[in-house]
């Protein structure tokens, strides 16, 4: 029972971070119709900058909760790269999808080199920062309080994103633009300006995700590509373009990964992709995807 609960909590921790990145991916795809392979690079950027920010904050002697605030703000600040990157993406909006994939993949590779230049080849850690938040005793088992905090942040972001998309006029305009861009423009919506906002929001979800994960793990050169692989599994399972789909997909992938690690670690990716293939066969549009018209 305790082992089961640990798998669930570990899975949800991973799902929380995965959801943030996948939600960014979904938002950008939904509105801009661009499959953004660079989302993993944003996640890694948030982790690297978060690690450096943590080192600085610990160095100047900030108390632990404030260190965390600094890390998260650093992750959020990374979103400034959104508008210039979106500006470059404009060159491929009207081109074939393969150009869009190539360009965002190029971003991913270029960022990887920038990380190597900026931080070297060794993983950057925050010196087990997460342990200083103590452990929560949940009766059956103990868990790092930080993991629960990350899950809570992801749930808050999911709720906030849902509120933003469903209950604000800007969110409604976003959904309308996602559904039918030409008509939204004919009603007076400046879709190009909206793209910049959406893309930056997508970047912020990724960089905050990276900053959130780094206190519990490390920033490393392979994390970007690894996350892209998992985020795509999430998106295919949940359905391309759907935020609820990202949530469901992230929980499924997170739990399966956690279970695989405990029972048969070698099959981690195999198990995730077995589900991806099953979804593609049984429900090609994904669990929450709209059937293609």
């Amino acid at each position: 029972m305790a082992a089961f609960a640990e798998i669930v909590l570990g899975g949800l921790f991973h799902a929380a971070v995965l959801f943030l990145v996948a939600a960014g991916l979904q938002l950008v795809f939904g509105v801009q119709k661009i499959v953004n392979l660079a989302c993993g690079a944003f996640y890694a950027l948030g982790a690297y900058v978060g690690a450096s920010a943590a080192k600085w904050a610990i160095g100047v002697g900030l108390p632990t909760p404030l260190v965390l605030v600094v890390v998260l703000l650093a992750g959020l600040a990374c979103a400034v790269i959104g508008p210039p990157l979106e500006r470059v993406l404009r060159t491929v909006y009207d081109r074939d999808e393969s150009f869009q994939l190539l360009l965002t993949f190029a971003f991913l590779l270029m960022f990887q080199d920038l990380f190597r230049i900026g931080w070297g080849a060794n993983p950057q850690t925050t010196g087990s920062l997460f342990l200083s938040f103590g452990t929560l005793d949940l009766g059956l088992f103990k868990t790092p309080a930080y993991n629960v905090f990350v899950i809570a942040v992801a749930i808050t972001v999911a709720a906030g994103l849902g509120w933003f998309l469903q209950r604000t006029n800007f969110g409604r305009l976003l959904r309308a633009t996602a559904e039918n861009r030409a008509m939204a423009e004919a009603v007076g919506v400046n879709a190009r300006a909206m793209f910049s906002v959406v893309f930056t929001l997508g970047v912020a979800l990724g960089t905050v995700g990276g900053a959130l994960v780094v206190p519990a793990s490390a920033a490393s050169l392979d994390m970007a590509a690894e996350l892209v692989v998992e985020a795509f599994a999430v998106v295919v399972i949940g359905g391309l373009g759907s935020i609820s789909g990202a949530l469901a997909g992230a929980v499924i992938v997170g739990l399966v990964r956690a279970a695989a690690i405990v029972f048969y670690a070698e099959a981690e990716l195999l198990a995730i992709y077995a589900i991806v293939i099953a979804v593609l066969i049984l429900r090609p549009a994904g669990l929450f995807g709209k059937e293609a018209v």
Partner: protein
Amino acid sequence: MLEIRALDVDIDGSRILSRVDIDVTQGEFVCLIGRNGAGKSTTFRTIMGQRKPVGGCVAFKGQELAGLSTFQIARLGIGFSPEESEVFADLTVAENIEMPTWVAGNRSTRSAAERIGMAYQMFPKLEGYRSRGGGQLSGGERKMLSIARALVLDPELLLLDEPFEGLSPVVIPQISEGLAAIRKGGRAILIAESQFHHVPDFTDRLYVIERGEIVFQGTVAQAERDAATMQILRGTDGA
């Protein structure tokens, strides 16, 4: 108000519109009539900036529209209801109607509430469907919603592509009266129509389009005296 001069539009290398001239002045109700595929929708899409002409020009209130984006053209005061209605299925009826008031940069001097009120007044049926999803409407209801949404922009010119399509014979006179009332307010209306018997009797002028060319322009009465034009118009009713 709207001046289209010698407009040439190509789609995938074939000439769809050829030297099209259309004028609409303030408060005028003009009908562009022709068979399916004659080039009516392409004319509207080109006015809205969704298609780029290869020749000629479109001007609105003296301003050349070439180089403007669709959203800028809409904000100048042109409301567009496309042939397929293109109601947002992901939004409710009320949200579809209110949407133009959320967009900044509209030149309307009327308040949002006033503009929204105008649309419901024109289409009272929509009032009862406010919280219904845009995807849960019949074809005729979508048509009404699409026109109502264009109206909320408070445009000086309304472009309505097949406004009577899919409407029941009972509703057509209602919409027709609504359009007459909109025009009385000083707005200009250009409708595209593929069936001659749908052309409202208060239509000021008629343009007949055939294979991308304007083959007749004049009043309905003039059209009825022109044997060649009537042959085309009768063809539209038979289709």
